């Protein structure tokens, strides 16, 4: 990330002093944590990657960035990408990999962008935290739009946050690419019209439910129980499950939620007494692993189908025995190595896994970081398409137009995207594929094997 060079007013120096004081205390506090780390035998804490200045530890990006490093003809306006994810708070297990990805790409893009006219532009990625709070998130987006005057926004980890950010982007007429899953972010819920300025990259719960429906039909079940995490994501998986399962005459006879942090799952007693033939779960780790474990204990004979929120290694790591054999829809990112060589996504997926693990010193890849990667690449390509000499408003509009018109047949981590004016996601159901946990790893689980 390019360091921000804004001059600091005299006022801020006093705050800085206070901040230094605060940091002194922080050091005292974190010293305890460090002591414990030294006695640790195996675990590799992520501190190095997150506290070190990005760019120094970064593995240089080689293939991923489409920038060509020619000698620049002239120096043009500096470009800015505004990035907001839920690095802290309830959505941090999604938002932190996203932020890591943004830092990684920012480090890869230090050379800037050369436009079609050969003019070179500096590129800055401004990364802010939404704290998983819609108010803080909207405020961050507003800051990026009005104070930092960014050209394009990649913002929103959680659907609720994205929904609060989107109106700001629309009013300011700037493209915003969300990393959250709800369809409502990109479409007007009543009319079904695409929202002009808003795009998103993650596969949807609709895709997830469609793929699950195929699998459940193949199993020949007609009644299922549905458990979902009590979050916007979980609630949306249920809503889609109801829609898609119903179309295939699969009835949800019992549904209930659970919460992140739950240790006991009284829902299993209702599953026992409801007599359903399979359980579908819509959640993300860590609780999704725990609920799988509980289901194994309490209703061992009912097959479990998990959802696409679990495409992260944490899902397996936290309950390896329980999740063994559990099938779930996933993007291809989690099974990159196992894909056939002619798969259009394979190369970039493998490269992303390598880059990400190197940049974060060995953190496992998750599908969420991939969503950020796709979104940032769109932003980058949009900026790269601009001619020099445009005003801010034109640049913003130019990026939007480019994304809408040119992201076709575009392989990303989430699938092969085909964005149209009516569909600001552009993924088909085939973006998700079925995988299964085998020997403690995700394995491709094609329909033939069902």
């Amino acid at each position: 990330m390019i360091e921000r060079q804004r001059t600091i007013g005299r006022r801020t120096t006093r705050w800085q002093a206070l901040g230094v004081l605060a940091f002194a205390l922080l050091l005292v506090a974190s010293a305890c944590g460090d002591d414990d780390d030294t006695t640790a035998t195996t675990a590799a804490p992520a501190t190095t990657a997150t506290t070190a200045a990005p760019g120094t530890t970064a593995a240089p990006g080689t293939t991923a960035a489409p920038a060509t490093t020619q000698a620049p003809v002239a120096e043009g306006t500096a470009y800015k990408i505004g990035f907001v994810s839920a690095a802290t708070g309830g959505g941090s297990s999604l938002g932190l990999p996203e932020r890591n990805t943004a830092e990684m790409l920012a480090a890869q893009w230090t050379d800037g962008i050369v436009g079609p006219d050969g003019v070179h532009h500096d590129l800055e990625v401004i990364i802010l935290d939404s704290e998983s709070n819609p108010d803080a998130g909207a405020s961050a987006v507003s800051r990026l739009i009005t104070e930092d005057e960014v050209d394009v926004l990649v913002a929103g980890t959680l659907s609720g946050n994205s929904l609060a950010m989107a109106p700001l982007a629309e009013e300011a007429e700037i493209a915003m690419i969300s990393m959250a899953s709800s369809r409502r972010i990109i479409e007007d819920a009543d009319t079904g019209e695409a929202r002009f300025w808003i795009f998103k990259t993650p596969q949807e719960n609709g895709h997830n439910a469609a793929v699950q429906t195929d699998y459940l039909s193949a199993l020949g079940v007609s009644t299922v129980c549905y458990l979902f995490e009590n979050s916007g994501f979980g609630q949306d998986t249920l809503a889609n499950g109801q829609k898609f399962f119903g179309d295939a005459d699969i009835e949800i006879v019992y549904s209930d939620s659970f919460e992140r942090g739950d240790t006991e799952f009284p829902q299993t007693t209702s599953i026992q007494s409801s007599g359903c033939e399979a359980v579908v779960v819509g959640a993300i780790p860590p609780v999704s692993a725990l609920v799988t474990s509980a289901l194994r204990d309490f209703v061992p004979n009912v097959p479990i189908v998990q959802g696409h929120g679990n495409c992260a290694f944490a899902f397996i790591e936290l309950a390896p025995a329980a999740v063994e054999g559990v099938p779930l829809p996933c993007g291809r990112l989690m099974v990159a190595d196992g894909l056939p060589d002619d798969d259009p996504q394979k190369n970039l997926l493998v490269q992303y896994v390598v880059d990400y693990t190197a940049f974060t010193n060995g953190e496992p890849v998750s599908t969420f970081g991939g969503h950020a990667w796709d979104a940032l690449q769109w932003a980058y390509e949009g900026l790269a398409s601009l001619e020099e000499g445009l005003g801010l408003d034109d640049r913003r509009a130019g990026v939007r137009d480019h994304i809408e018109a040119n992201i076709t047949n575009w392989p990303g981590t989430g699938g092969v995207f085909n964005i149209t004016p009516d569909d600001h996601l552009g993924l088909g159901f085939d973006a998700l594929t079925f995988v299964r946990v085998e020997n403690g790893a995700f394995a491709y689980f094609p329909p033939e094997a069902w």
Partner: protein
Amino acid sequence: MQRVSQRPTYKTIVSVAAAVAIVAVILALGAQKNFGPQQYGQLVVAGLGAGAIYALIALGFVMVYTVTGIINFAQGAFVMLGAMIAATIYGDASSGDAVGLVIAAIIAILATTLVGVAVERLTIFPARNADTLTLIIITVGVYIAIQGVGLVVWGTSAKAFPAFTTLDITDGTLRFWGIVLKTQTLWIWGTTALVLALLTLFLGRTLTGKALRACSVNKEAARLMGISPTRMSVFAFGLAAGMGALAGIVLAPATRPIYDMGLKLGLKGFVAAAMGGLVSSPAAVVGGLLLGLTENVAAGVTKSGLKDVFAFIVLIAVLLRKRGIFAAGTDLERP
């Protein structure tokens, strides 16, 4: 203005009627879901399992509150620290190393105790003359800071921690009459009972324990008797932090520990302590069990998403009725 009731028999009748009504509602709701005795048994067992965790955390709240009069919102952070430090030291959760587990647990408890002492010295002691609300806000700040440190050190991913019985992530289960019981729950129950017993012995029999109690009754009198309330405050914080860490460690196999686990657990522990009237350890344990039971039975027969609503309804009912299960109106302004 709270008045002393004159008709205990009337109150008893109302309580019994309410209890009967609640049981009837539970049975009616359960009947809609075809619940049999097995299901109810399962809900109760699971409820007592979750409740024992709340109870263990509640004991930390009670310890600090009785001695210093502070509701220590940082208690949840101690729980998190205990679990995370132990998990980090132990490392690979499936290594099956019992000695390593004990060592990891001891180091985690000691480290967290030190953090508790440091918190008292650095934040509570300098503000010891401030009013209660200020002190509470300080503990909120401490919670936020410690959780932040947890985020910096451990990131957002959850840790795996071995169950004590199997020394593996996968816990053993016991089955009787169709009811499933995780073996870790036995550890949690055992630990809660043990901590309660040790605490009672400690407070009742040892000199330091008596000094702690003296502080809680009357600071001035304690000072006159040569007991330093500030020393006791440090002691209470350290002890509460250690107890919190222990709670975190025994529940770690049941919940995969994560940097922000403390908020919810702390809140629940606090509610449990509040149900018990904040000043009595046995009452806090009863409060915890009651809370867990309420949550699980309510979630079982209705929607899980509403379980906290029922938990807080019980809390408010308990507060309004008696201000704690055993305690009389300790906050009543006396003329």
